[in-house]
């Protein structure tokens, strides 16, 4: 049934329909509305048989989820940014133990400087934690991906993280088809793990594994991720059959078949990029778009196929690896290593900066004209940066970057100096 809902509310309803048995909550913007929504559904009795636990930190949130999952319960939590970093030890632990916890990551920048708005720095920080990492383009997809996430997690014995852009999606109200309880029950069987903490059949979970067996355990974690490449597509297909619409999968291609330039991206920015592609195609430029729904496991083959023979590939990233460049781009480059495409990384939309259509269009035009550098930060205030770089060149004294910029402008702690 179509309803006008905030994205977070729709996700809360979808999570509740998956009948989680333990949900742990710790507030962090912009994720809070999701766990608030689930908490209300538990408190009202609409979500029965669920323990809702207000924990004292994100580290505890993931730890509670680990305990609940090891005890055989379906566990869910949500976080963002600093919260994800605070729980990162437990994130890796859930991945290593192969516990099918599902978590929403409302993508947000990482400080310092502290910033509550959207980018993908948080997700990139846990790229190698052993989780399946799905990215939603829209709130409908975010809603649907959570239902697929529980299914995938429990089929594969892997934790699954559903990434949705903070504010852009979490706080956007739009028309969303929220699946009914009957639909979800038909799609998602009860959680039946192989090994649980049960006095009737005692198991030891989390033993100290030495050099003689560690590599094998780690290899199996990789093999499960490779299995997930097949399973993600199957679950998306099954979802489409059950719910009558497509969501998820490995990659989503848009007008890319005959494209001369393909733009690759993650998340909600894909909507803007598609609009730009439509406009540019009307003017005769063959632009295609490939959205990556599954960032981990990374769909090398599917991406290779989707990019096809395009001569130019532009990867628009809302994150980057300081001192290196693109994160996603590195993976994309590997997928098309045998092609002759020219690949560029465009860093855009950091810390919630808007990425207007004109910016994307300009980047694509530059790519078509072979004017796009290997790495470009778009919409950068060159004046500010140049002034600070010039100062640093003549002054070896250190200091926090944001505050140094202000001091150059003769402002310190809101005082003129």
């Amino acid at each position, binding site marked *: 049934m179509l309803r006008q809902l905030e994205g977070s509310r729709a996700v809360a309803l979808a999570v509740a329909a998956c009948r989680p*048995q*333990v949900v*742990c909550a710790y507030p962090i913007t912009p994720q809070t509305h999701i766990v608030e929504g689930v908490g209300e559904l538990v408190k009202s009795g609409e979500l029965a*048989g*669920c*323990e809702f*636990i*207000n*924990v*004292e*930190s994100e*580290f*505890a949130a993931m*730890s*509670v*989820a*680990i*305990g*609940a*999952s*090891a*005890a*055989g*319960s379906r*566990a869910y939590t949500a976080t963002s940014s600093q919260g994800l970093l605070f729980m990162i*030890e*437990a994130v890796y*632990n859930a991945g290593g*133990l192969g516990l099918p916890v599902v978590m929403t990551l409302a993508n947000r920048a990482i400080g310092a400087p502290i910033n509550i708005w959207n980018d993908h720095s948080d997700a990139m920080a846990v790229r190698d934690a052993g989780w399946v990492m799905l990215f939603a383009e829209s709130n409908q997809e975010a809603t649907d991906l959570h239902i697929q996430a529980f299914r995938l997690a429990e089929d594969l014995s892997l934790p699954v993280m559903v990434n949705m852009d903070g504010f852009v999606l979490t706080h956007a109200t739009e028309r969303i088809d929220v699946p009914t309880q009957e639909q979800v029950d038909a799609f998602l069987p009860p959680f039946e793990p192989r090994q*649980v*903490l*049960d*006095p009737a*059949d*005692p*198991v*030891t*979970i*989390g*033993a*100290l*594994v*030495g050099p003689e*067996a560690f590599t094998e355990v780690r290899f199996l974690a990789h093999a499960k991720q490779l299995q997930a490449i097949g399973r993600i597509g199957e679950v998306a297909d099954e979802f489409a059959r059950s719910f009558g619409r497509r969501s998820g999968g490995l990659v989503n291609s848009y007008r890319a078949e005959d494209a001369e330039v393909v733009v690759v991206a993650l998340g909600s920015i894909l909507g803007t990029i598609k609009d730009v592609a439509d406009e540019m195609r009307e003017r005769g430029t063959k632009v295609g778009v490939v959205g990556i729904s599954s960032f981990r496991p990374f769909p090398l083959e599917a991406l290779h196929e989707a990019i096809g023979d395009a001569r130019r590939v532009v990867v628009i990233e809302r994150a980057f690896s300081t001192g290196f460049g693109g994160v996603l781009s590195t993976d994309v480059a590997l997928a098309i290593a045998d092609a002759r495409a020219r690949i560029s990384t465009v860093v855009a939309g950091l810390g919630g900066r808007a990425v207007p259509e004109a910016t994307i269009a300009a980047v694509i035009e530059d790519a078509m004209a072979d004017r796009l550098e290997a790495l470009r930060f778009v919409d950068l205030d060159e004046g500010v940066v140049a002034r600070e770089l010039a100062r640093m060149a003549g002054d070896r004294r250190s200091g926090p970057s944001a505050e140094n910029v202000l001091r150059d402008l003769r402002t310190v702690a809101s005082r003129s100096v």
Partner: protein
Amino acid sequence: MTATQKVKFYQVGSFAVGNRLLEADQRTVQADVSRNNTITSGHRACQGCGEALGARYVLDAAMRATAGKLVAVNATGCLEVFTTPYPESSWQLPWVHSLFGNAAAVATGVAAGLKAQGRGDIRVLAQAGDGGTVDIGFGCLSGMFERNDDVLFVCYDNQAYMNTGVQRSGATPSAARTATTEAVGPEPGNAFGQGKDMATLAMAHGIDYVATATVSDLHDLEAKVERAMEFHGARYLHVLVPCPLGWGSNSSDTIRVARLATESGLFPVYEAEHGSVTAASPIRHRVPVEDYLRLQRRFRHLFDSQGAVKRPDIVGRLQQMANRNIDRFGLLTNEVA
């Protein structure tokens, strides 16, 4: 023990009553041939390990108290390492280890998960060393206490990070030598005026049951575990477990050192319910603190080669700490101050 007992059945050198002289239902769980052996033989603990001994008594007592319906959650540390050298395991109960600092939260999750499945009859025991309790695990532990989750948390306190090579923790006593508080300089060993009184901190959370114990009185330790399992909600048991490696004591002296810790007053043994002390174990043969310190190489810098006190100032301060414990808990009068 019956109150009317007149004859002293004490074993040589101790005040522990021999099991064989007690009624069958009063004997220790360990004396029962059908005990669970929850940590079964073959583990890799050092000779004379106080933690292995304490954990064995705690777990077997908890297993008996719950009729075997028990799950254990372990923090990273010696106990975790020496019991689970993959592919082997000493654990004869469902057991999970996640991280160093999250045992209390994982236990919360296990308890919540079981409750959600309608299996709330299965109880949860979390265990950690002093580092995993008072330092890195403190946040999760305090949260678990505050929510009053149905978990018994047991701290095996050997007063330093032994698994990593004897570094100072927030439970290391003043003046003790560790690898990060070396016995050098004018104030050798760990500083005075630091450290956490974890049992008191647990009491401040207002949880139903808090107790301290040592491996020198194993009957008392078992009784406290059994008492703890009578409550539902957060409970805390702090067990002093000498570490021959880290303390520099003889493996054969583990029980003796633990006993002297209590008989000197340095480690008060007591119980508290709902935030108030309800009972304290009296000191039956008071000893000066140097009797306790002298057996341990971590305090060797306080004595000369003949065993005479070399630093009366420091020993005096430690004696004052013991005296304060004795006054506070009424350890000589058995009256709680």
